[in-house]
């Protein structure tokens, strides 16, 4: 345990805010970061840096069933999500982002490394996160209100009591009047909002959002981004967000981890300097465009290797 704590101290990432890419040390070489101070002032995250999620040196490979050859998917991933921080992960497709989520959610065990959620070692354990999948995956036999209470229901509480709690959440998501509707009666965007409410109502603080808007059309998508931004800025949950869209990541997050091609490792951790509350007009500002260009060349540079 002492060794793990020592390790953690070494990899604490400094979070000073500068304009432009705040490129930290490459996390693959944690020793170079040993003298960095914990962050002092930031408008983007609570000042007390309690950690909601910490992955330490997590690696995972899958053995190919045919040839017995191993596919190395994740290579020594180390990342932090502080309490109340919105962190995005971007990377080329096929870089093992779903595997990452399955590891954090406890569906898979890493070959090495450890995962902490709220300072508790949870490697390989389920039931510590709130998950929002790529597809809304609402249960078609449940009404909207019964869908959103699902995670709380699993703790053994009565449906009746929970339905009352769901009402105000659904109203905030603009789903009032749809409490007793079935998922197929809702549009794609509304289903995704219901899935988000389901994640918000989960008793687990840390939220994992797996490309939640990728299946939506462009118009609905930007509408949902704005909505998510407002919801998150109101509630400030700890979020780990996987996306393919650089713009989406920049608009929503406090920090962004850029993953490399397979086997995925952390190329960079980037602090997003824009103050909150954010508007989507931000996407037209010069700083935003500049950051976006740098990020995309970072991603393309990796892909061309």
């Amino acid at each position: 345990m002492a060794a793990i704590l020592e390790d953690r101290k070494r990899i604490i990432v400094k979070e000073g805010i500068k304009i432009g890419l705040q490129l930290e040390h490459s996390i693959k070489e944690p020793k170079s970061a040993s003298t960095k101070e914990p962050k002092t002032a930031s408008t983007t995250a609570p000042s007390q840096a309690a950690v909601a999620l910490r992955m330490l040196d997590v690696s995972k490979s899958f053995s190919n069933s045919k040839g017995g050859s191993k596919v190395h998917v994740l290579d020594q991933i180390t990342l932090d999500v502080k309490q109340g921080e919105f962190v995005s992960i971007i990377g080329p497709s096929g870089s093992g982002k779903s595997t990452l989520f399955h590891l954090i959610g406890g569906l898979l065990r890493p070959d090495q490394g450890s995962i902490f959620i709220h300072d508790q070692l949870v490697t390989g354990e389920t039931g510590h996160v709130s998950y929002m999948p790529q597809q809304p995956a609402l249960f078609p036999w449940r009404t909207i209100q019964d869908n959103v209470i699902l995670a709380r229901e699993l703790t053994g509480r009565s449906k009746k009591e929970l339905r009352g709690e769901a009402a105000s959440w659904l109203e905030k998501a603009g789903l009032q009047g749809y409490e007793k509707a079935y998922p197929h009666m809702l549009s794609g965007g509304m289903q995704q909002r219901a899935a988000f409410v389901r994640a918000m109502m989960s008793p687990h603080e840390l939220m994992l959002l797996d490309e939640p808007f990728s299946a939506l059309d462009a118009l609905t998508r930007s509408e949902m981004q704005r909505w998510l931004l407002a919801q998150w800025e109101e509630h400030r949950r700890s979020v780990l967000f996987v996306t393919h869209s650089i713009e989406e990541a920049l608009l929503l997050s406090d920090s962004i981890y850029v993953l490399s091609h397979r086997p995925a490792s952390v190329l960079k951790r980037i602090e997003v300097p824009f103050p909150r509350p954010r508007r989507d007009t931000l996407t037209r500002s010069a700083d935003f465009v500049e950051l976006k260009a740098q990020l995309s060349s970072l991603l393309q540079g990796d892909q061309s290797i």
Partner: protein
Amino acid sequence: MNRRRWSQAGPPLAAVLLLLVVWQLAVMLLQVDKWMLPSPIDIAKEAAASVPVLLEHTWATLKLTLLGFTFGAAFGLIVAMLLHPIPLLKRAIYPLIIVSQNIPTIALLPLLMIWFGFGLMPKIVVITLVCFFPITIATMDGLMQTDRTMLHYMRMAGASRSQLFWKLELPHALPSVFSGLKIAATYSVMSAIVAEWLGTDKGIGYYMVLQKAAFRTDRMFVAIAIVVLLSIAMFTIVQWIERRVVHWQQSSKTENELS
């Protein structure tokens, strides 16, 4: 709704009517003997003449069918639910269940009679054996096809094994369970008739055996018509229950048709 129901039922009804007309004309024009092939009108006349007797036999067969189907459905569901959570058991038993279907029911009847006598018991066993198969297979397939994303969601949220089953796997498998039940429902009438061939003194199966011995072809056709109607009735009952239990699927189907 009504209009749609008619547009669905119309074509098959017309086809049946056409067939009956052709049959009637063929028998009349070709002057087929009545004991060889009676005309539809002859059959209808015969049916009308023996309504009280037929009702009694039909009622007996219906009771047997319902009883056997209930046992078969319960047995089939229990087998599927027991095999599903234990992969080793499933791998061991599943092929046996498939192979068991190659044993003709008729061949089992003498054995069942030796073991269980002539009462209700061997007949129920026959129907149960016939019915459980499609239900078990359909239920197990349904349980295996649980949506991966929903499964991941439930497991990440910390659902226990039993919560996974009752809140996700079983409701997700229900449409599949009902297709198994519908197949079993039609099988159940046929197997009830076969079961009645072994010693009994009432039921449509028994009636058929009697009329065959007397070369009453017209009455044989009456019996066949009743068997068909019973099968349709069983199917309709299960479908009616399905509409109420799997309501989300029905409504999403109509939605898709509209859009």
